[in-house]
């Protein structure tokens, strides 16, 4: 087990290295000049030069990369050129929000996607199959920002049952927190549930065609037992892995959802930072999401191993 864990963590290192290189080079590719962006259109060349010098924007690429990496080693991700806050501070403010949002969304996506997937699989080819699939595909077939606005107009403006925005920290008021999270998490979750549904359905179909399902039926077990005890366990295996991969998609989705629901999260931070050429923020945030994503995949692998006896005890 430890060996497996060590090996997986070992594999993460080159991946993270690549992430940092991609992000760093992407930044270099972006047109526009962070100093200029920071100085604004009224700035004099002297001011721009001043800013350049102050933030070492004139250093060679490799030097900057080196400094950045060295900074990471000390837990320093630099400061946001735009707001002068430290990136670490920005991230610590935002990670909980996005993580909560993503987690809730994932829960919604999994519950909804898996149940629709099972429903579709067991009624394969029948009308229920199509109904379940169409419902589950609804989410990915709608731009998230659009669905979000419709939700706000319906639930917040028209019926007034949910707040249109206004994130309340979980620690402050769990109920309000949940109320403020429901809509964004649903919009986000729906977008992913379609994919989960698809995977669940095909995994379930495959599992249901396996001999051991027939064996279970031959024992006279009820259909519910067959599906939930014998089939679902096996169908869960691919869904776990793919679910973790989908988490990446989900983190993408937070960009739009957070924008629409004015959530103080991560996604919006990064997109704005890209537009503002706030490199340190982009780098720090993407690195952070990448690590979260990779860790999640690691957990998924562990979960996979836990559910799959073949991998247990390795």
């Amino acid at each position, binding site marked *: 087990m430890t060996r497996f864990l060590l090996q997986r963590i070992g*594999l993460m290192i*080159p*991946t*993270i*290295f*690549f*992430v940092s*290189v*991609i*992000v760093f080079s*992407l*930044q270099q*590719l*972006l*047109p526009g000049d962070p100093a200029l962006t920071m100085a604004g259109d009224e700035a004099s060349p002297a001011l721009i030069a001043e800013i350049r010098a102050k933030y070492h924007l004139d250093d060679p690429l490799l030097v900057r990369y080196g400094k950045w990496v060295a900074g990471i080693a000390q837990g320093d991700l630099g400061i946001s050129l735009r707001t002068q806050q430290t990136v670490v501070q920005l991230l610590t403010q935002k990670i909980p929000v996005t993580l909560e949002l993503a987690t809730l969304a994932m829960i919604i996506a999994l519950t909804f996607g898996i149940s629709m997937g099972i429903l579709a699989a067991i009624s394969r080819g029948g009308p229920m199959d*199509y109904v379940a*699939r*169409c419902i589950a*595909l*609804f989410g*990915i*077939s*709608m*731009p*998230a*920002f*659009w669905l979000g*606005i419709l939700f706000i*107009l319906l639930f917040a403006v028209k019926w007034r049952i949910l707040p249109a925005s206004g994130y309340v920290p979980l620690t402050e008021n769990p109920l309000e927190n949940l109320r403020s999270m429901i809509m964004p998490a649903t919009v986000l979750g729906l977008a992913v549930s*379609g994919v989960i549904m*698809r995977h669940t359905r*095909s995994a379930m*179909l*495959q599992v249901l*065609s396996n001999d051991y399902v*027939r064996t279970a039926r031959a024992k006279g077990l009820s259909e519910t037992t067959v599906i939930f005890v014998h089939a679902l366990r096996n169908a869960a295996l691919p869904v776990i892995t793919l679910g973790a*991969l989908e988490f*990446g*998609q989900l*983190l*993408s*989705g*937070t*960009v*739009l959802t957070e*924008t629409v629901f004015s959530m103080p999260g991560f*996604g919006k931070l*990064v*997109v704005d930072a*890209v*537009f503002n050429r706030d490199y340190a923020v*982009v780098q720090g945030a*993407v690195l952070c*999401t*990448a690590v979260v*994503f*990779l860790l999640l995949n690691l957990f998924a692998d562990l979960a996979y191993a836990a559910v799959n006896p073949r991998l247990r005890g390795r």
Partner: protein
Amino acid sequence: MSVALSIRQARPSTALRSPLGLAISSLSRQPVAMLAMAVVLVVVVLAVGAELIAPFDPASADWSALREAPSRAHLLGTDDLGRDILSRMIYGARASLLASVISVSIAFAIGVPVGLCAGYLGGIVDGVITRFTDAMLAIPALIFAVSLAAFLGPSLINAVIAIGVAAIPVFIRLSRAQAMGVKFEEYVEAAYVVGNPRWRIVLKHIFPNIVPALIVQATLTMAFAVIAEASLSFLGVGQQPPGASWGNMLTTAKNYLEEAPWMAIWPGAAIFLTALSFNLLGDTLQDVLDPRSRPRVAG
């Protein structure tokens, strides 16, 4: 279709003459999939024949007809600059189709060969490619696309390129996994034994056999691209004015939701229907092309 099974373990016949042929013939038995196909076809027709079909110039503004509700003159109404929404929808179909076709082509053209190499060659090549792909996957696709689109400058084509590039890792992953699955098939080994060089094995023996899975992924990526184009437009790096795309129409329309709901309804519905159709197509194709999910012959 099936031939007498004179083999001990009865196997489903996974073999097909042409993947597309089989796909179409099996889809034709699925009413919902046919509907989805029809939607896609309509989009294709609109996109290709936009000049002929559209009643108005999609960019010509009419100050006397700002935000007019659907009427006889403007079947779907007019937008904030008095442009005919129907015409813009028709040209917008072109943008959406472009978004899906080009981005998938890019992702396919780059992802598949790379994935095939990784899967077939294995070893250190595979290791590096896999790490790199993981890294790309770990960067949220939309953020990646936004950065790339910002780098290239906001325009439809650049957004589409960005979407395509962001979709590359999915294709790498898929074709790698598929190639690894097929690599040890006996017919690939047989190809080696009769003296095929490596490139030919990959090209003639592995690639054609992973096409079904790739087609499925392609349709799903098309759905993704339609939505992604809309999202990038929302973030300001998609199709630029006065060009029409469903995404930027919707983005503009959201400012006039109450004043002129029709501005939002049509592009919203079009995006939804198109993406749903691609999704359903992919979904159904997966069903019919993926032998795993086909019911097995009892043995």
